[in-house]
């Protein structure tokens, strides 16, 4: 069995009357990219804060690289919180040296790595400037450096690409993949499903504090089967109105995605199109996009809890 970077066993956390996290169990493999997904208020931040030992679970236990959480396991983690924030009146270099020191680096080492990272992120000429003088994107990069500067074996990144232009987003992505190649485990929390599809090996979707879907991403998608048709056509779209075959439609302009009724044959759509004289440029059976799985799980789980409540 592969070693776990982080393992949660039956973790619950309540605030007053609200249950933020309920009996959550997870294993995150070392060296993987793990996506922690869920709608707003699902309990993602609370889960991350418990991994970071900022909060202590009411029940259950958490292990970080095989050790129970302590003050010193905090140094094993690099954290990029969703709510970014730095000391705005301090100089860029001073802030990074200070934060690196708090993660256990010696003064000399903190200084050396700060300069190294500022060079790498093309911020060297800004190092003696106050943080407040930097653009939003540059501040994001500084904060990312603060998360990775002590070369942590576990990285927790909450919406790492928000506010970054494509060039800087590429820089951050390359750095993440580079760290992963060197053995780091990356926990990614995001609402951007296309990023999850591109980067994550496995995911956990939580909703109302519960694990509603988890496992390897490929296995999850495979389990849904190729139940979606991706179509590009010219002409009248009436042929898609087949309630017995098409369950729902998702139009993206040029491309239309049709989700099939379980057991329905995609050929029926094609026949109707030909009969209607519509020109088909693309007709592809695909696995459902993660976005759809997310929406289905979250609204499904919601319907389920409502039903539970009424029963």
């Amino acid at each position, binding site marked *: 069995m592969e070693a776990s970077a982080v393992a949660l066993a039956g973790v619950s956390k309540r*605030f*007053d009357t609200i249950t933020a996290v309920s009996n959550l169990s997870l294993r995150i493999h070392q060296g993987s990219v793990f996506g922690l997904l869920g709608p707003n208020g699902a309990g993602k931040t609370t889960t991350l*804060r418990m991994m*970071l030992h*900022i*909060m*202590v679970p*009411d029940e259950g236990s958490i292990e970080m690289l095989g050790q129970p959480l302590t*003050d010193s396991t*905090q*140094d094993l*983690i690099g*954290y990029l*919180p969703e*709510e*970014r*924030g*730095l*000391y*705005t*009146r*301090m100089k860029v270099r001073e802030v990074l040296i*200070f*934060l690196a*020191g*708090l*993660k256990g680096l010696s003064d000399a080492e903190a200084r050396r790595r700060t300069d190294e990272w500022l060079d790498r992120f093309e911020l060297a000429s800004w190092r003696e400037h106050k943080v407040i003088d930097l653009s939003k994107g540059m501040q994001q990069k500084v*904060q990312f450096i*603060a*998360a990775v500067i002590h070369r942590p074996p576990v990285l927790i990144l909450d919406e790492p690409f928000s506010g970054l232009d494509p060039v800087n987003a590429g820089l951050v992505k390359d750095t993440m993949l580079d760290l992963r190649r060197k053995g780091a485990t990356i926990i990614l929390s995001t609402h951007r499903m296309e990023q999850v599809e591109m980067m994550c090996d496995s995911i956990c979707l939580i909703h109302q504090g519960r694990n509603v879907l988890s496992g390897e991403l490929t296995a999850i998608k495979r389990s849904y089967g190729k139940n979606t048709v991706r179509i590009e056509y010219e002409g009248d779209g009436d042929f898609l109105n087949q309630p017995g075959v098409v369950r729902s439609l998702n139009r993206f302009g040029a491309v239309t995605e049709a989700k099939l009724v379980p057991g329905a044959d995609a050929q029926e759509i094609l026949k109707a199109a030909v009969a209607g004289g519509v020109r088909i440029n693309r007709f592809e059976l695909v696995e459902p996009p993660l976005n759809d799985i997310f929406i289905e799980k979250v609204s499904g789980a919601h319907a389920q809890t409502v039903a539970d409540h009424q029963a």
Partner: protein
Amino acid sequence: MRKLWLIIKREYLTRVKTKMFIFSTVAVPLFTVGIFVLQIYTSRRQADRTLKIAIVDNVGGLADSIMKGLNGKLPNGQPQVAVVKVLDRPRVEATESLRAEIENGNLDAFLVVSADVIGGAPAELYTTNASEILFDTSLNRALSHAVIARRLNERGIKLQDVGKAVRGVEVKLIKVSDQGETEEEGETFITAIAVGMLLYVSLIVYGVTTMRSVTEEKNSRVIEILVASVRPFYLLMGKILGVAAVGITQYAIWAAGAGLVAAYGVTVASNLRPGASLPQLHLPLTLLVYMVVFFLCGYLLYASLYAALGAMVSNDQEAQQAQTPVTLLIVGAFLLFNVILRDPNSPLSAGLSLVPFFAPILMTLRIAIQMPPLWQIGLSIGVSMLTTVGTVYLAARIYRVGVLMYGKRPSLGELMKWLKYT
């Protein structure tokens, strides 16, 4: 421990390096001393040359005694005022010609003593420069003396006899203490009030600074990565100790500055008048030691309360409102100064100096005036320390939860729940 040290260091350095710190450290004493010096300078500025005056004496024979009274000297040894012309009961109106002499610069002023001045009529002083303070004081005194002497003389009394007859009785104040009896000229009171005020002001100033520092980290959201690296308790303690170090630095600079000025003053004074010394503030060593002990207790106590408040609020405006109850505790102690000063050893004073939140300030004040029984000091230190441990503990629990909470300020009930969170 290294992390705690880093937090203290950052808190200290970022504060000490600000323009505000340098400004307040240098400007406050300079401003105070500057105003003081300016006042001394302006009050002496006029007296740099002999003023020439004329006297029109309509009584007769009064001018001589006025001149005897004008014996003030300039720093260079010349008289302050020289009477260059006396007109004894002139037959013709002399005012016009004297006026002309003022205008061409031969005279600075002339004094017209009316014939009925003995009966109570006023005298008149003609001058171009009405702001010459000297005329107000020296000349007025000399004239009054001359007139009073004449009035007494007319009743057959000598001025010297009156002086002896109306002399008041001096009461010497002797302070009784363990160190023996010392003559007292109000230094004890001044010292006590100064010590009390110093505690009062520094508890508020540095307490509020601690609170600001907490809200700053919370508002900038940097707190999230801090608590992911360090236990909140160390964060809180680092902050409190860092601000304390800033305060101590500021006082050390002021004390050193005051010491230099005092040393310089003594040198100058003893050059002018051998054997002279500046009036000194009584600051016995024991008082200084107690001051430090009680300051530390008081500061930790109030700074932790202010820090907890800072963690509860989400912006500076809310902080302004929320700090009122804590500030009122300190102001309350300040308002009780009177009770202590009036009778430092009364049961009321003793009781008040043992009340948890007042003890650090009020006990220091009592020690400064009159040494209370040792058991009371010990009890007061004990009470202060216990309160401090309590407030630091509560503040740490509130801080830990509060720094991650945004939005509405918690109610008292919610605060109680915070204390139970893990």
